[in-house]
């Protein structure tokens, strides 16, 4: 008679002393899923691609996640030999496989950052709510985060207005809308607090651009003079040059 007995309630009963330990398919499959995610987290750390998904504020979750996932996978594997057979149903196995699909997606696709497509969806509520004090805006080198945060409060707006006519140097990607004139562009940069899902945009309108020189999503460095006019910030460009996408494409407030 088989050692594996089942009661009417289908609760497995172990007869322990007489059964040899063997690999549990259920625990092995679970260990494989955990290991796949652990590999992704280590890979994100080693390749630096984490900058494409999280802000610098929350990147600490990746090493923590990598270590925990590795420990969980190793622990699951180390405890995968059982006396009771623990088969996996086919449906369960495929569901476990589905959990690994995002790992494949992230690792197989080339590195990319959010671009114009998303900027047009977020522009309505962007560039506000980033807390930088008016004092930070009124002194030092102006950044796109300063520009975005200046529109949060009347004090910030005033502080930025006081710097009209100053030289600025911004890096971002080109955004164009249907009604953007040929000799203008919007210079955009995403501001990410935790992950890309919470991205807002910092954006300035750049005038005096050579028509046709730059297409949407091109990364450029703009040097010029800043003119905040109400809630709109205009940069009169003296130089616009193509640059590579920065290693950290998103700004952190």
């Amino acid at each position, binding site marked *: 008679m088989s050692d594996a007995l089942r009661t*009417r309630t289908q609760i497995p*009963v172990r007869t322990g002393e007489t059964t040899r330990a063997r690999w549990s398919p259920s625990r092995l499959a679970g260990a494989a899923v955990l290991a796949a995610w652990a590999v992704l987290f280590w890979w994100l750390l080693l390749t630096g691609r984490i900058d494409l998904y*999280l802000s610098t504020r929350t990147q600490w*979750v990746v090493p923590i996640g990598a270590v925990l996932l590795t420990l969980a996978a190793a622990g699951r594997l180390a405890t995968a030999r059982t006396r009771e057979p623990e088969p996996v149903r086919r449906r369960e196995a495929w569901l476990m496989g589905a959990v690994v699909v995002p790992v494949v997606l992230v690792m197989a696709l080339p590195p990319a950052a959010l671009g114009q497509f998303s900027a047009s969806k977020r*522009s309505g509520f962007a560039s506000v709510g*980033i807390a930088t*004090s008016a004092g930070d805006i009124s002194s030092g080198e102006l950044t796109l985060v300063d520009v975005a945060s200046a529109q949060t409060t009347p004090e910030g707006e005033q502080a930025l207005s006081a710097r009209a006519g100053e030289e600025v140097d911004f890096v971002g990607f080109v955004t164009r809308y249907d009604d953007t004139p040929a000799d203008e562009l919007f210079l955009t940069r995403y501001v990410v607090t935790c992950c*890309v899902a919470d991205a807002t945009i910092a954006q300035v309108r750049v005038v005096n651009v050579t028509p046709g020189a730059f297409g949407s999503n091109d990364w450029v460095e703009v040097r010029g003079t800043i003119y905040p006019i109400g809630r709109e910030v205009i940069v009169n460009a003296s130089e616009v040059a193509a640059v590579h996408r920065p290693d950290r494409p998103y700004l952190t407030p």
Partner: protein
Amino acid sequence: MAQIAAPRTDHATPRTALAIVGSLAMLAVILQVVEPQRFAWVQTFFIILGSLLIQALPFVLIGALASATIEVFVPMGTLERLAELPRPLQLPAAALAGVAMPICECGSVPVARRLATKGLLPSAAVTFMLAAPVVNPVVIASTFVAYRGRESMWAMVGGRFLLGMLVAVVVGWTVGAVSKDGLLKPNPEDRHAHPVQLGRPESRVRRLFLHLGSDFLFMGRYLVLGATFAALVQTFLPAPWIERVAALPVLSIVAMMVLAALMSLCSESDAFIAASFVPFGPSAQLAFLVFGPMVDLKLATLYAGTFRRGFLRTVVISAFATTLVATMWLQVVIG
């Protein structure tokens, strides 16, 4: 009387494992050949999906670790003794206990599930689950930072804490005196976690790893599904549409709650987004901050997988109604 188990035909075999690995490899090859990232929306969707999962999974794992620790190290009966307290005391106490759980909403689901299975009153476990992502110190601190320098700062920080507690308690009360079996779906992984064992019991460390992996795998599949929905919405949602209702008194609150549910943001970062909706006013922003961590797309799939039918509906309706009424009252008081 025991009977010999009938042979099952739906068990995965090495061939199934090979088919799954082969499918995943095929997917990688197809992605390389087809280059779907050429389409801007596909690229945006993949980036948002990846970021949601990369940020949330470590918290799910931490939640699963807390859950496994409770299962293995909290003696049977400890939480049942708490369950003997009167319910009017238990629910506020459970909400307040959320202060000690500094994780976001994905991590609180496995913990609540485990608390209920270990004997805590199920409605108290639900109250804890809903309150923890709103009232924990990390979330309150991030709300403070997001609203720093604004007149409404203390109203937002205090309002989020108090309203979060209130809504969690009301939902717990609405869930009522349901039993744990009436509330929780069985976890298929638990089949292997609770065998009736006649021989030597498994060591605590082995059980800890078993429960940790089981909870993670159980929650992980629903998180992937929920994050997929949330990423799709984030990819296509034209936020400017939402802004058009900002001036309408009640609709602005409703719109912010709907937006919070669709965006599925982490409760530790949502204050920065809420603060950016200046046209909506503090009450509507508060609704966003309280409702979002309790009901969103990725949580909906986690709830649907963890709790029995009807629970999701109960949470959505009671959390929505309580948040709406409370924030409408605040709108009258603070504007």
